[in-house]
């Protein structure tokens, strides 16, 4: 088979060994004691998920009444290849030097960015990856950027404290990191922050960005943020967005003046 680049509007199926064989692997647990009945139930469940010839290749009783399964099967579904959102392609992002140049040339003053991991979330790894001087995976953090004044408040910061700090520093952008997502805690926490920003009449003055392993740009927008970043996002992704949004807002303000 030729490794042809998929054409727009063509369809794709999962691939493991032969083209379009549809083979997928999945694993899950069922609240059943390990045995033939449990394996049968797992196979049937996989069938309902759209897998033809599902096969339990491994089952393990985790405790008396819970069994873990590893299943392979042929997924019958195919999907159409459609254009992806421009923001999600790496070409749309600028590197640190370009961003610094745009700030110096077009914004003409330092951008003030305040960030925190909010609520009871003790994880600072996400916010640190974006802020810390050394950055992450070889991509410097915002603290390294000329023209960006980066204030990382760390973790377990209350929404009120974050907002107070943003007001005090006259911040241009707020970055919120959420790692813990049990019982949708992150959604409640992020919504509360947006409510507070709105209530204080600060929405137009702030670029609001959230990030975390379970946060998508779509979810962020749904919650009223300007953007959301997830796994694989580095400081330059976030900085590109901030600078772009800053210039967009500025252009809009001039247009209506």
């Amino acid at each position, binding site marked *: 088979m030729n490794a042809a680049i998929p054409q727009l509007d063509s369809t794709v199926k999962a691939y493991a060994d032969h083209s379009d064989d549809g083979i997928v692997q999945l694993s899950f647990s069922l609240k059943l004691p390990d045995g033939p009945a449990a394996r049968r139930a797992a196979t049937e469940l996989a069938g309902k998920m759209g897998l033809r010839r599902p096969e339990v290749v491994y089952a393990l009783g985790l405790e008396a009444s819970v069994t873990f399964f590893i299943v392979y099967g042929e997924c019958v579904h195919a999907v159409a290849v459609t254009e992806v959102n421009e923001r999600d392609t790496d070409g749309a992002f600028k590197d640190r030097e370009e961003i610094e140049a745009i700030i110096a040339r077009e914004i003409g003053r330092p951008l003030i960015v305040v960030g925190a991991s909010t609520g009871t979330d003790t994880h600072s790894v996400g916010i640190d990856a974006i802020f*810390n001087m*050394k950055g992450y995976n070889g991509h410097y953090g915002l603290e390294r950027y000329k023209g960006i004044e980066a204030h990382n408040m760390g973790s377990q910061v209350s929404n009120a404290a974050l907002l107070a700090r943003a007001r005090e520093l006259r911040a241009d952008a707020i970055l919120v990191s959420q790692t813990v997502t049990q019982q949708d805690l992150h959604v409640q926490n992020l919504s509360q922050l947006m409510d507070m920003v709105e209530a204080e009449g600060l929405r137009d003055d702030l670029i609001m960005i959230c990030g975390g*392993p379970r946060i998508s740009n779509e979810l962020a927008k749904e919650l009223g943020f300007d953007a959301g970043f997830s796994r694989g996002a580095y400081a330059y992704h976030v900085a590109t967005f901030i600078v772009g949004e800053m210039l967009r807002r500025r252009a809009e303000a001039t247009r209506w003046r």
Partner: protein
Amino acid sequence: MGAIEGLDNMVNDALYGVLYRDINMVRTFIDQRVSRMINGAAGIVINTGEDNYLRTADAVQAAPSVVASQMINYYLAVESRVPEAQIAVGNSFEIDPGLRNGLLYEWAQAQLTRELFPGCPVKFMPPTKHMNGNIFQTHAVDALFNLVTIATRQGIQTLGVPTEGIFTPHIQDRVLALQAAHYVFESARDLDAEIQFRPGGIIETRAREVLREATELLARMRETGLFGAIEAGNFGDVSRSRSGGKGRDGIFETDASYLNPFVDIFTRQN
């Protein structure tokens, strides 16, 4: 509260609150002194939080500050009358898995910690920083983490789970982690007794360098004091000022007639 509930382990770090919760450093050291007295008297093993420096700073470069902090935490605990067997100094397996010979550096750090604190259990934390959602790769890295744990006889281990960095572990992640650790611990049970480190080799040299730099850091601290070292950002790349942070307004100078009967009770020599 932990003592009343009969807990075995509690996180008790002299620097963590200062660096990561921005609690005033004077306040933290006072609170830590008292909480350690209670934990020491109640038989609770305290776990210090050096693993956090390795997560926020670069794990290879931050190694000497980890050793320096382990020593500081150790002596502050001894001063609060915590028995050695109840002092679990912290360490973690956070070197970038892409680094050539990274396993050797981890081994050096773990062995160094073991040898510096022979009477203490060591708290060994799993790789998290570089775990990126590839559950299969994370499981592989965790296997090496388990190998170093057993080969250097770390006393307390938090197991790594394949889904590290994705969500709170699901039931199967916990069992898979236990199963993998059991496999490695059984399979390499007495490896430590079989190993000698080649003098001048990578592991021995690394341990020697880390210890030398830690010693230098502590020597510099003799001049700046611990507060000065924290202000200079020596730990976890985080800098805090001695007049800043939360809880400062709760600090009072003790009067000449100040009496705290609990300190006497908790620090009474057995």
